[in-house]
């Protein structure tokens, strides 16, 4: 073949190859696009967007629990940092299993008398890829379950801030499990479950003012009163051992809270956008309020105050995030900053040791937020909600007040009973005197949080010897 032909041949061959699919497509004839196919395609896109968003939110909310570990861990004394963080980590481990085995079903299963869910979803039976249209029609049921699980995890972790530095680990574990079954799962059902009686009553709780913050806060107060004050409180100074950890934790909480509140819209939509903006706005307003008040009251603005203010604002906006306009979020934030600041200062005057202000911030903030939801809610933001007092409807505020009182009374009584049971099983909720002085880390976990010195601590580095409780003879044999 000639040179000219060969070079031209390449281009002809290439063109022919490219044309084949075009010709083939044209040969199929032009089928008309059906409107149903467009609808399915559009709803698939919506499902994908909602599902992606909700998976991310689920992860964001989980991140709040390690964030809480840092927030609380930085505020306790060095000797208790690990014991405090262990409580958050174990909440993640224990509740994750409890939820998938039974907890989810008790909270969100078909309602039995409006009081508790059935065991239909136990072991995630029937919880799969298909949506559960009762709750979220555009995301897999599994995703909704997982999202709710992260709330079930962080709520009990919040409680133990009030009894920091003095609770037995065994007592913590037993109480955690009992509380999940007897308080969180029922309350979540009442407020969020289809058929739940507080939901039916009309209570508005977008992301957990009642279910998370009031329940944890009230339980925290009861626990603090029952366990008693830390040794040395209030005369001995017990300043936070690492406020950088606390600030880092507060930042992670603020970040994760976007998943907590905006994710409670259960879709990637305008409602989530409102909740997102409200969350940030309330946090910021509350931070400013707390810092300014503290500055005037004590003369210096503190970073612990800023972090606490932010959390108070986030707590208060939680029930309201998907029901109010952003200007109301500013009001709610300022109120939370001021009222929670007062509550925290009141603790010293009243003399009880809510060590990390779980009640002062979460309990009080949650109650305030739930009530203000009844004031500022508007159907302009969420047609599935209601109008509040500000919009001419005083009934909603009354419903909110009832739901708050019911939650408070239920949680107070239930946690009192559960703590009594736990104390009976473990022989006391509290560490012994010497253990409390040595600190949780050494006494309960055999660990030191910080081994930063250069002086050699001792010797070892061999495999740990097991320490069975009975006769010394057995121990000698093990070491031999």
């Amino acid at each position: 073949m000639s040179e000219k032909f060969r070079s031209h041949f390449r281009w002809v061959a290439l063109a022919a190859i490219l044309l084949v699919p075009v010709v083939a497509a044209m040969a199929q004839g032009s089928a008309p696009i059906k409107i149903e196919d467009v609808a399915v395609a559009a709803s698939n896109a919506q499902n994908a967007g909602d599902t992606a968003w909700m998976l991310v939110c689920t992860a964001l909310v989980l991140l709040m629990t390690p964030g809480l570990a840092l927030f609380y861990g930085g505020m306790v004394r060095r000797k208790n940092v690990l014991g405090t963080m262990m409580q958050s980590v174990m909440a993640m481990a224990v509740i994750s299993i409890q939820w998938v085995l039974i907890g989810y079903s008790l909270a969100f299963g078909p309602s039995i008398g409006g009081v508790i869910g059935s065991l239909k979803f136990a072991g995630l039976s029937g919880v799969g890829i298909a949506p559960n249209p009762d709750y979220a029609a555009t995301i897999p049921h599994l995703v909704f379950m997982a999202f709710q699980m992260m709330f079930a995890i962080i709520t009990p972790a919040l409680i133990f801030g009030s009894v920091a530095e003095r609770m037995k680990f065994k007592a913590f574990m037993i109480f955690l499990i009992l509380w999940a079954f007897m308080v969180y799962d029922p309350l979540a059902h009442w407020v969020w479950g289809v058929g739940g009686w507080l939901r039916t009553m009309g209570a508005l709780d977008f992301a957990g003012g009642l279910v998370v913050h009031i329940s944890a806060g009230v339980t925290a107060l009861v626990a603090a009163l029952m366990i008693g004050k830390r040794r040395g409180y209030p005369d001995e100074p017990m300043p936070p051992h690492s406020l950088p950890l606390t600030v880092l934790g507060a930042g992670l909480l603020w970040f994760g809270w976007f998943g907590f509140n905006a994710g409670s819209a259960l879709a990637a939509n305008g409602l989530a956008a409102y909740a997102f903006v409200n969350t940030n706005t309330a946090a910021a307003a509350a931070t400013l309020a707390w810092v300014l008040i503290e500055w005037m009251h004590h003369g210096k603005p503190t970073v612990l105050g800023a972090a606490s203010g932010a959390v108070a604002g986030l707590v208060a906006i939680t029930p309201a995030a998907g029901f109010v306009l952003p200007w109301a979020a500013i009001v709610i934030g300022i109120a939370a900053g001021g009222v929670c600041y007062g509550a925290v200062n009141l603790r010293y005057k009243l003399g009880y040791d809510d060590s990390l202000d779980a009640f002062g911030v979460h309990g009080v903030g949650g109650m305030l937020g739930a009530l203000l939801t009844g004031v500022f809610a508007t159907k302009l933001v969420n047609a599935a909600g209601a109008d509040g007092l500000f919009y001419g409807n005083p009934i909603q505020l009354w419903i909110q007040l009832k739901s708050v009182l019911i939650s408070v009374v239920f949680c107070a009584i239930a946690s009192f009973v559960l703590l009594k049971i736990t104390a009976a099983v473990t022989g006391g909720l509290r560490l012994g005197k010497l253990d409390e002085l040595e600190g949780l880390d050494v006494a309960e976990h055999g660990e030191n949080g910080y081994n930063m010195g250069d002086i050699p601590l001792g010797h070892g580095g061999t495999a740990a010897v097991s320490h069975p409780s009975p006769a010394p003879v057995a121990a000698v044999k093990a070491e031999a």
Partner: protein
Amino acid sequence: MVKIEAIIRDVMVDTVKDELNRIGIAGMTAYEVRGFGHQKGKTTTYRGAEYTADFLNKIKIELVVSDEDAERVVEAIMTTARTGNIGDGKIFVYPISQCIRIRTGESGKTAI
């Protein structure tokens, strides 16, 4: 030989060290310590609770010098560490029975 221990304000340690170097004193040891004498503690506030720390941060420097140098070392410390306010610190002087350099095994005044 004497050991001179000076408990001084933590912010003064660089000034004192520079002056001691200037007058020809080669070595010293510094510790971070906490203590108080007549000085009242500092007040800090955490979430509405006020704490007064009794023990304040100080620096203790120790140096071993010959008997002849002792007086001018004390003088140097006095002039640089003094602010005139309560909390300036104290100097203690101890007799030393032996001083040994680990590297060479020298002892006595040559080991200082």
